[in-house]
């Protein structure tokens, strides 16, 4: 079995929208048979944490200095385009 991947969920405060997105992604990936480690942080903390995670799901803009993949997570708040983002996350987890 592949190493369990780590997703960093980021938003402005690190506790509000990133929590909602983390819960939604966890539920949906479970349905697809995938689990992962989750971390949450403020968007401003991402550059310092990115090295220790596999990729980032963020509801706010992330510094261009971050080289890990950044997936936009706003779809989990608006409901618009959610399936496409879930496919992107699944693809990253299966890498």
């Amino acid at each position, binding site marked *: 079995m592949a190493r369990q991947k780590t997703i960093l969920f980021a938003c*402005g*405060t*690190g*506790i*509000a*929208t*990133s*929590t*909602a997105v983390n*819960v*939604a992604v966890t539920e949906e990936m479970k349905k697809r048979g995938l689990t992962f480690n989750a971390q*949450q942080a403020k*968007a401003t903390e991402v550059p310092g944490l990115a090295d220790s995670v596999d990729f980032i799901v963020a*509801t*706010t*803009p992330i510094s261009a200095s971050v080289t890990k993949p950044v997936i*936009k997570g*706003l779809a*989990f*708040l*608006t*409901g*618009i385009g959610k399936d496409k983002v879930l496919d992107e996350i699944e693809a990253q987890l299966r890498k």
Partner: protein
Amino acid sequence: MSNGLMQLLDPEAIVLGSDASTNEEIIRILAGRLEALGYVKGSYADAVVRRESTIPTGLPLERADNVAVPHTDPEHVLKPGIALGTLKHPVTFANMEDPDEMLPVGFVFLLAINDKDKQIEALQSVVATIQDPQALDGLRSARTLDDVRAVLG
């Protein structure tokens, strides 16, 4: 429909059909309610307004009246709570994901959050409401608390 949000909204923190004309005005009206009700410190309103100008919270729903979820850091919060404001005329909030884009917002959920692990249900209820066009349409025409209850159960 019933998504449990009504249990989390303080009836005294619901403002329907507000005349507010800017995002700061509606944030301060709702923050004033949360402060008077003991949910947040006096520093909360300024902190939310400041944060909204740098890390905005408008959510694009492809509607003429979108949603914003202003909030701030936990140190300004005394206990978790949610205030709801509906606007007579949409006010402008910037898009959370793309702060250069301005959105007309007709619904404001002002969040007082201080512990992410204990407020997951509250956040999920807000998200479920945001994603339910019928609920938003119902809130837009709501004029009384009973109207809101009928929409949010």
